[in-house]
């Protein structure tokens, strides 16, 4: 039982961005994937989710033994994968409540009668400091950056995936918004049915890790994971930036 990425190579518009990613995320773990801009972090997120513009050249992604490569995005979500988008799309005319209910029914059709769904979504709104009026707004339509990220977290909490990829969820957030994101993730991890949820937190800055402590930190440069370590690695990035690791990586390849 784990998310196993092996030898993953992927291209965008015929340009190879991911050049062989190997990564194993065990249930309930928090992994941080850090790297400078353009290192391929978001490409990894989209390749895992099955975005049609990202072509997987080779490799495998197994979610609890099920191969995701080749599956359409909705099947991957049903298998238990969730992506929190850096720039989520707006869907005008579709209310947040309708969208989340439809998604929840799709990934887990068995349970949750309307009254319990309602109770659950109101609890999660509270954790995220969101006004219930939010539910009748159209998905991401006219949302501020912070509202978009909160909606991603609301979906995360309502869909209860096995593996959640958070793509730059911290970017553009003020401290209050970042705190509520942290609260939401930690509440999910503390809950009975969310305790097994594992996270892959993609970030440029280590700031978010103050709110959601990582068990494992990976550094990605030029489409490869060049270094893996514990939480101390994030602190090193905070102090020194990526240059030294980039130099180490360059010399080890040379």
């Amino acid at each position, binding site marked *: 039982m784990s998310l196993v990425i092996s030898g993953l190579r992927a291209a965008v518009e015929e340009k190879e961005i991911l050049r062989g990613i190997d990564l194993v995320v065990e249930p309930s773990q928090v992994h941080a994937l850090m790297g400078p801009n353009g290192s391929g972090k978001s490409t990894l997120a989209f390749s895992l*989710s*099955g*975005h*049609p*513009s990202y072509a997987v050249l080779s490799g495998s992604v197994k979610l609890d033994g099920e191969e995701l490569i080749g599956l*359409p*995005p*909705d099947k*991957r*979500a*049903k298998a238990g994968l*969730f*992506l929190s*988008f850096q720039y*989520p*799309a*707006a*869907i*005008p*005319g*579709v209310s947040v409540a*309708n*969208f989340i209910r*439809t*998604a929840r029914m*799709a*990934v887990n059709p068995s349970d949750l009668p309307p009254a319990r769904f309602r109770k659950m979504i109101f609890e999660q709104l509270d954790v995220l400091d969101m006004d219930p009026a939010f539910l009748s707004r*159209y998905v991401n339509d006219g949302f501020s950056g912070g509202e978009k990220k909160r909606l991603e977290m609301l*979906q995360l909490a309502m*869909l209860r995936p096995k593996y959640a990829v958070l793509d730059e969820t911290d970017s553009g957030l003020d401290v209050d918004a970042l705190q509520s994101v942290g609260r939401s993730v930690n509440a999910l991890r503390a809950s009975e049915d969310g305790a097994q949820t594992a996270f892959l937190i993609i970030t440029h800055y280590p700031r978010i890790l103050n709110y959601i402590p990582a068990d494992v930190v990976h550094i990605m440069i030029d489409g490869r994971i060049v270094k893996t370590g514990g939480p101390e690695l994030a602190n090193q990035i905070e102090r020194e930036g990526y240059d030294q690791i980039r130099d180490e990586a360059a010399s080890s390849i040379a």
Partner: protein
Amino acid sequence: MRLRAALPSITVPVALPFAPTAATLDAAIAMLDGAGASGGANSPAVRRAAFAAYALLPVPGGYPGRSWRYDYAKLPFDDLRWTSGRQRVATMPFAPLPADDAAVDRSALATDNAGGLVHLGATLLEAPGPTALDPRVVVTSLAAARRDYADLLAPVAGTIVNPHTDRFAALATAFQNCGAFIYVPAGVVVEAPLQLLFVNPAGQAAAVFPHVVIVLGAGARATVIERYAGDGDAFVCGIVEAHVGPKAELDVVTIQQADVEARVFASRAARCERDATMRWQLAELGAALARSVVTTELADTGARGEAAALFFTGATQHVDLTMHTAHVIGHTTSNTVVRSAATDSGQGRFFGNIAIHKQAHGSDAALRDDALLLSKAAHIDSVPALEIAANDVKAFHGATVGSVDDEQLFYARSRGIGRADALRMIALGFFEPVVLRFPGERLRDEIRTALDAKIDAATEID
């Protein structure tokens, strides 16, 4: 749209095979002079003059696109029956139904309404019994209005839709065989909608030429719902004209759900006096070919015109929609919003025109039209236009034609929503800005359900 409600059987004493010819018009006029026919409202002279105009007026349609299948010069009229009359029935069909009764076909033919008229083909149905209507309000057939309310009707009928400027308005005037007159006197507010129902009976191909005249006195308020439904390949070619008095407010809602074999044409126009508000809400959902020309004349200061229209063509359906707004004088406001979609070999075209006349300084006009193509063979043309002859005006127009946005689709699918469901959700959401302009949640839900059914019926949604 197929109706599960039982229709009364009607006996049509005399019917003419319809063709747009002088001989047919002569026969029609002779028939209206005879006994039993009572739907006629136009004089023989008016009919003959309109028919002469029909023969001379240009064929509308301009230069049809590659995939447009109809030529208005070559419409077939075979097997159509022209008739005119009224019939008493024991009870009125399509009375409001209980909202929670799932067993009946709850098309909101059962919309809560304050009264109205029902036509089967061109035959007016009359049922005994009380009506919910405010006694100050007039809702009657156009022929009866010609007799009983000539002073109210004469200044309006034929002056707002000019039958000598549009070929099918001319045809409708020449062969008029049914219709309605609605009069809401000054200061009277009718809360529930007045409903005009035009239903084609199964097994008949009726040639129906309705003429609806609506007059609102100063400060009056009303909502009129006109519905087109029924079975078979009817040809409906009508006129709706409205005079909205000073500070009056009129909503005209059109729900066109005619059979997929039918052709439904209409010329609709309103003249708005000082501080009057006219709102058009138009849903073109049925018919093989639907043509609607909607004109709003903002004739005096403070007048406001709002038009919201949607259409969704599937199979080989065609919709041809034209919306004109004329800012005749300054400090008038208009807002037009159109959403359309097409799937399978569905076709559509929209001409939107805003004219701001020379004296109309300080006018404010907006026209927005968006079209969604859901299959390879679907096609929608969009032609918005502004003619501005005044200075110091605010005018906006914009149009888009496109397919479902890939990023929206991916986002929904990344949440576990399957491709078909995601497309359905996005397409229905696309119509929401126009759906929300229709009055009443029940009517809005009816339209949402009808749009959803069009997606169900489509063989290709992409």
